[in-house]
């Protein structure tokens, strides 16, 4: 009995020694600018959150404006003087001068540029290869009234034909199929590229997942990205991404996995300030379905081939309102 007691005391003493020895291990030497780097990582997320808040406010303002205009129109219709019809356009919120050229009617046209409102006429490649312009409003479809309605942003359940015009916005040169054609975009170096639009039937992701994917794509350098996403298990996500965490304790845990395609030139939260990653085309994100906590992210220049085994839904992550 006494021996057992001594043994316990000895064990406790050795635990204390072990704790003290572990505490005495040398502390990592980190870069001098570690504080600044950590602040930068926080700042990336703070900006994303701010953009999101501004988007919600802008949507609310748009709804309020529509209600006000509707009220004025109703009030006016009962009197002798009908008010001049007012059209609310998806105009730039910043009020900055447009960088796009304008046609004789004063309508802007060109390839959409990062960080500013789209032109009225957006450059596209028509179905038979003709270059032309679609009205942004035709491409966009109806204006969403709230965040839930940003389902508009997903490829719709059916392919939709949109007329393609010359820069005058009136002379039709072909058609453009939303959900099955291609669209133009401006690369960071100022040149224009074309991207194919997917044509698979899409399902709406949860709004929080959409926001996370959009934030990830934007922070990685391309807000005009596409994402393929699905709800699956941690085990299947690991197989699809090739990121099989050795600490995975619950392979059946539900997770969302998203594969995002774009021109990714930044990787802000994992690279030292001033350094740049290779130009990745693909990034993935695995998110716990319950906690919404990010389980893993990664990037690749090539598609994730193993992801083809999953039944993925497509969503277009383009910014609806540019800030």
């Amino acid at each position, binding site marked *: 009995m006494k021996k057992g007691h001594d043994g316990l005391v000895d064990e406790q003493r*050795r*635990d204390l*020694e*072990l*704790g003290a*020895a*572990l*505490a*005495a*291990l*040398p*502390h*990592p030497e*980190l*870069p001098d600018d*570690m*504080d600044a*780097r*950590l*602040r*930068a*990582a*926080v*700042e*990336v*997320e*703070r900006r994303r*959150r*701010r953009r999101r808040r501004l988007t919600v406010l802008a949507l609310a303002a748009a709804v309020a404006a529509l209600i006000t205009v509707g009220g004025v129109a109703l009030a006016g219709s009962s009197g002798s003087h009908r008010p001049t019809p007012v059209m609310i356009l998806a105009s730039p919120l910043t009020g900055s001068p447009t960088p796009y050229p304008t046609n004789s009617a004063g309508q802007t046209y060109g390839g959409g540029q990062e960080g500013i409102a789209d032109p009225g006429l957006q450059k596209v490649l028509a179905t038979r290869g003709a270059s032309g312009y679609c009205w942004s409003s035709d491409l966009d479809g109806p204006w969403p009234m709230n965040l839930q309605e940003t389902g508009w942003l997903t490829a719709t359940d059916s392919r939709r034909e949109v007329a393609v015009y010359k820069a005058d916005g009136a002379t039709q040169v072909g058609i453009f199929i939303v959900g099955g054609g291609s669209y133009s975009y401006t690369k960071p170096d100022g040149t224009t590229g074309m991207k194919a639009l997917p044509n698979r039937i899409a399902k709406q992701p949860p709004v929080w997942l959409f926001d996370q994917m959009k934030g990830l794509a934007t922070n990685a350098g391309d807000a005009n990205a596409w994402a393929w996403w699905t709800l699956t298990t941690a085990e299947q996500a690991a197989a699809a991404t090739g*990121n*099989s*965490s*050795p*600490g995975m*304790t*619950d392979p059946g845990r539900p997770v969302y996995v998203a594969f995002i395609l774009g021109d990714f030139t930044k990787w802000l*939260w*994992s*690279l*030292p300030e001033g350094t740049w990653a290779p130009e990745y085309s693909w990034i993935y994100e695995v998110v716990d379905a319950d*906690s*919404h*906590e*990010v*389980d*893993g*992210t*990664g990037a690749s220049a090539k598609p994730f081939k193993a992801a083809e085994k999953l039944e993925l839904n497509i969503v277009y992550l383009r910014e609806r309102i540019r800030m």
Partner: protein
Amino acid sequence: MADAAVQAVVMAPASESADALLHAARRGDPGAFMKLLAPERPRLESLAYRLLDDHADVADVLQEVYFSAYRALPKYRGDARLATWLYRITYNACLRHQARQPDTADAGADEGRPSPDHASSVAERLDLAAALAELPVEQRALVLMIERDGFDYRDAATALSIPLGTVSSRLAAARAKLRGALAPDQERGAV
């Protein structure tokens, strides 16, 4: 006046200050967030340092930890201690980072065996570091959390997402290996 200002800061109750910081950080105040995490940072740095095979990656992983923590903080419900929650984020970030690395066979090589002329305490420390590096990553995190940082078993189970019983068994295995590294040479069978 300056003294009075300092006095006011010193007099503020610590818990109230932490609550206020948490509240402000949840609202998105980056300064409050940095202050909130400041007391935990050395332990998080040390955890990442010990879990990652390539110590040059610690800075990158810490950035990811801060980014993830700031993003997830509004959803932090307080049902686990903030330190536990941060440990979990750091542990997961390290696992993700390790999984992205091609091969990590040379773990802990930069803190290898001591040369004979080192002082014994340094030698022990290096032995311990090497032994620690040889543990599976989950055991490494467990032993650091419990033996070094004083977390209880429940916190460790929460942080590492493992059952309470598993904490006991894995910790016992880890302790046995590390005690071997700390034991005098005679106990280890050396001449």
